[in-house]
């Protein structure tokens, strides 16, 4: 879905018309709409007002308090870890599956197609409870066979997150494979590249925008998931969305705004760096 490499284009006669100005104004308004809550959120992480609803002066107190809040910091760390591992695993598997779906005709492909859309349309709460039942069921079987008692932990969350992220990656990567010129792979084979080399040197670089798009989507989904995380996490592993959900129920304090601001900054750094490195690698 995300195709970052669009060729330059000029639209003859459309450049500076009224239409373009209206589009520009619309875009500005939409960006204001998108950023209004973000600005409020960031701003109010510095307010002195403990209700977090009024601007009563600038302070770093909430950040100091946040850094001393080991529970919250650990939750943030766990959440980032889950999101990262999920993103990597789901992106690799999803990309491979997307290639299989686009390049091969095989029996059961139609069914698999349907299966891949199910994790997208399934309501989160249903998937969460289904996974809870599944883990309890399979742990029971494992215990009765091997005598080993398993418990949910951070890895059960990761497994669950991967399960719903794969589909999103597949959808995005397939879109980028649809516009792929198969002749390029033939040309590489013709020049003596074996299938593996073709994949790494030609196919992957060319679908990279789609792969990155899928990875970003997986990262966002995992980072923000609350319900599935709640039901599949084990004792003592705190996750940020769960922690935040619990805390805002009582009161949204500027400390919550502060952790959100921090996560925003970290995520942006991550994206910026990945883009930077990718551009470097392309050069």
């Amino acid at each position: 879905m995300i195709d970052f490499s669009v060729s330059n284009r000029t639209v003859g006669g459309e450049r500076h018309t009224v239409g373009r100005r209206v589009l520009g104004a619309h875009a500005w308004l939409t960006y204001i709409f998108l950023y209004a809550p973000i600005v409020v959120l960031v701003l109010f992480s510095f307010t002195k007002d403990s209700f977090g609803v009024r601007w009563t002066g600038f302070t770093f107190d909430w950040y100091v308090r946040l850094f001393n809040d080991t529970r919250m910091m650990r939750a943030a760390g766990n959440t980032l870890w889950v999101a990262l591992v999920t993103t990597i695993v789901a992106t690799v598997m999803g990309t491979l599956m997307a290639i299989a779906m686009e390049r091969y005709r095989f029996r059961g492909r139609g069914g698999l197609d349907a299966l891949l859309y199910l994790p997208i349309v399934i309501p989160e709460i249903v998937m969460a409870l289904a996974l809870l039942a599944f883990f309890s069921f399979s742990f029971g079987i494992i215990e009765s066979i091997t005598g080993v008692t398993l418990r949910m932990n951070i890895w059960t969350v990761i497994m669950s997150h991967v399960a719903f992220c794969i589909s999103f990656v597949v959808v995005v990567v397939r879109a980028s494979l649809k516009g792929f010129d198969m002749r390029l792979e033939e040309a590489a084979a013709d020049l003596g590249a074996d299938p593996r080399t073709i994949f790494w040197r030609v196919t992957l670089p060319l679908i990279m925008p789609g792969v990155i798009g899928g990875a970003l989507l997986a990262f966002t989904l995992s980072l923000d998931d609350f319900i599935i995380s709640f039901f599949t996490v084990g004792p003592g592993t705190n996750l940020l969305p769960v922690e935040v959900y619990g805390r805002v129920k009582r009161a949204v304090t500027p400390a919550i705004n502060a952790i959100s601001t921090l996560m925003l900054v970290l995520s942006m750094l991550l994206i910026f760096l990945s883009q930077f490195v990718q551009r470097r690698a392309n050069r």
Partner: protein
Amino acid sequence: MKGIYRGLLALLVFGLLAACGATPAAEEAPASNEATGETSTNDGVDRSKLSKELYVYNWTDYIDPTILDDFEAEYGVKVILDNYDANEDMIAKVRAGGSGYDIAAPSDYAVETMWREGLLQEIDQSLLPNLKHIEPSLLNKYFDEGNKYSVPYMYGITGIAYNKSIITGTPDSWSLIMDAASASQYKGQFSVLDDEREVPGAALRYLGYSLNETSPEAMQKVQELLIAQKEFVAAYNSSDVNRKLASGEYVMAQAWSGQAMQARNGLGDEFAGNPDIAFFIPKEGGMIWMDNMVILKDSPNAYTAHVFINYLSRPEVAAKNTDYIGYLTPNKDAIELLDPTVRALYAEGFAPDAEVVKRLEWAVRNETTAVFSDVWTAVKGE
């Protein structure tokens, strides 16, 4: 080049994690308690039988975190706390098995659900000498006669909290929020709980029924009443009623006593209280409920769990906890240790007196009350 890319990404994330001081997996084991040479002290606790960790599953913000530190300091047991926001969420996880928790805090009816399903361990009362501090009238309740499985932790009542500076006089009836004339006057300025048992329950009492009435006629009347009320309600809200009452966004609300107390007194350093907030149980009657400490069936640390529950039942600990949470303590000997302002509020109606107790009712929640779901869905779907 791919490798560099991945390596850098991983490095960045690890860097961030390190900066956050977080470890990806669950927390490490706390300092060992083996150093404690004495196997028992005069408090009767056999320290050699204590585990290093205790996993407690509790409602969000339902315990003073310093109590956990105090407990660890005294016994060397690290308490690992996770939170839930509904009995049903907690039961779902416990029922699935292997939840890994030792202690949970189900509400009254949920205690019954859990022990009937075999999810709980019987409590060894000999390990709980502090049970003697619990108010006798709050023991042996319908959901756990003889307190074989549960120890009262906190209780509360459901009534109306209001802002005295706006609602003058002394309101004493559910009609304040149920009667169209009154509700329309405060349109968009009050909330009722987002709870399929509490709201129809209040309506039932207002209509002169028991909280546990399930006859079709009564349900029909309740549904009509609540649908009529809906357009005036600002929100169905069970969560931040405290803050919204304190900040003046709501002038009144159906609320749990603890929420009302927090609106009046403020909540830690998170927000300031509003001295104009008052609370009452309407003359038609209200709901009483209680959260209880239980030990889960598959808890490997039952002994430590008993010690922890007994610790929470110490009057001074219960008092500290109650000051923090704002709900009502069933610990009769803790009351005199409470913060004087809290005690004053108890006297003002935030806690039931002998007169109020008579019109409080426990809410049954079992298959017969499934009809409340339909009423609520109908109201919500309107």
